[in-house]
């Protein structure tokens, strides 16, 4: 049984989930495959990696301090989906990658992701265990120090910061800007949208990170999920308009629904 006060939330959850599922299925079966606009950040990846290869400099990638076992997991998963293709490009061109791991449980997954990228890129021999370096579990300051030291010393050509990022956004992008790195950054975290726009050459604002993660794979189900997000946004907009009217006319219907 659904708890009192959560029934409307549950119905809304099912409606939103159902719309997403329908959009994914329609796309998967080829009935309605949506066309998704291009993301400048994704288009810039091959060019950026090519630049790194020409300059013979490494690429620094980061998923921030978010992990896979906390509330930030969806952001980290979306970031990993994009970084997967970044590493594949690096593998194709033989460009070294550096990733500082701040979550111990992510270490094997990230090592596998980077190794897999070099294998798919056709240069597995260029992969080195050093590319993924553990700096302390949940130690944000250690991550910040490691990032700042690496970017200042090695001067990577490209600095990519995606996922659930916190204070390290300032350090990574600030330091990257000083060193002249080409910067691609994206986080759905609210407080860091301004710094992304100001310091990243190619920012992914808000939910663009999720859409870009779906876009990067190019699979019809993933593209369908973006169309599903649009359907959900329409539902939310209708709800906002209806509730605004209800509140304006002094109706108690909305508060009744929330406490149902």
């Amino acid at each position, binding site marked *: 049984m659904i708890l009192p006060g959560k029934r409307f939330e549950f119905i809304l959850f099912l409606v939103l989930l159902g719309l997403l599922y329908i959009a994914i299925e329609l796309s998967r079966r080829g009935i309605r495959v949506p066309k998704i606009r291009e993301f400048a950040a994704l288009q810039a990846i091959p060019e950026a990696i090519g630049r790194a290869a020409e300059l013979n400099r490494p690429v620094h990638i980061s998923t921030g301090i978010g992990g896979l076992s906390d509330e930030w997991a969806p952001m980290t998963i979306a970031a990993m989906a994009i970084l997967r293709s970044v590493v594949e490009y690096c593998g194709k061109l033989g460009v070294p990658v550096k990733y500082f791991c701040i979550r111990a449980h992510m270490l094997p997954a990230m090592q596998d992701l980077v190794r897999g990228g070099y294998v798919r890129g056709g240069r597995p021999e260029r992969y080195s265990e050093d590319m*993924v370096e553990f700096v302390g579990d949940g130690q944000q300051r250690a991550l910040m120090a490691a990032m700042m030291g690496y970017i200042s010393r090695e001067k990577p050509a490209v600095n990519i910061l995606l996922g659930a990022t916190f204070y390290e956004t300032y350090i990574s992008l600030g330091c990257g800007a000083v060193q002249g790195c080409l910067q691609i950054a994206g986080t759905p975290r*609210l407080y860091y949208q301004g710094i992304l726009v100001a310091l990243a050459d190619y920012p992914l604002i808000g*939910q663009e990170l999720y859409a870009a993660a779906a876009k990067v794979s190019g699979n019809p189900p993933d593209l369908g999920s973006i169309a599903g997000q649009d359907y959900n946004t329409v539902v939310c907009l209708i709800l906002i308009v209806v509730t605004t009217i209800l509140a304006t006319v002094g109706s108690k219907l909305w508060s009744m629904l929330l406490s149902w």
Partner: protein
Amino acid sequence: MSWIRRREICILLYVIPAAIILINHFSGSLGPVTSEIILWASTLATFAILLGVISLFQHHLTVLARQRRGWPYSIILLASFLTTFAFNYIYPTAYDFIINRLLASLQMALLAYVGFYSYTLFFRASGTKNPYVLVLLVAILLGLFYNLPMRDVIWTGWGPLGKWVNDVPNTGGMNALLIGVGIGTLALFIRTILGYEEAYLGG
């Protein structure tokens, strides 16, 4: 048993706990199981730290053995790690000193960089050729004047204007972004439970 493939098991290991936690959120009927799952997650995370420490030692011992650039820093790191670890068990007073006096001070020094980069953000932003930056710069200026102690001396309108910008467009924009993020999270969740999203499994 060929149907049991590694990826499918991994996806199930994601889906089953997620479903249990979700059911408990709405029904409240799986409280003990949810607590157990969260406890398991913490236990597994503790084992993962061991993996991380092994990786850390492997990396820095390799740096030392091959005398790579910056190898003296590896000595400092390993010595600091072993000293702190040992003091925690042998001499807790020294351990407290390291954490409260040395580490805390170093961390504060590092955090000062956040302040530096955030204060210089305005100047960096002004040099960026991006139309959105103009909005950011105007917002920064409004925020600065709104929080200025002498704002009313300059112009009495800064207070109401800043408050309106903060309460109306800022809160509206933040909420819109939050709704978008929530929907994006839901989309990623359904892609993951249907097995279309596999990036979190690595390679």
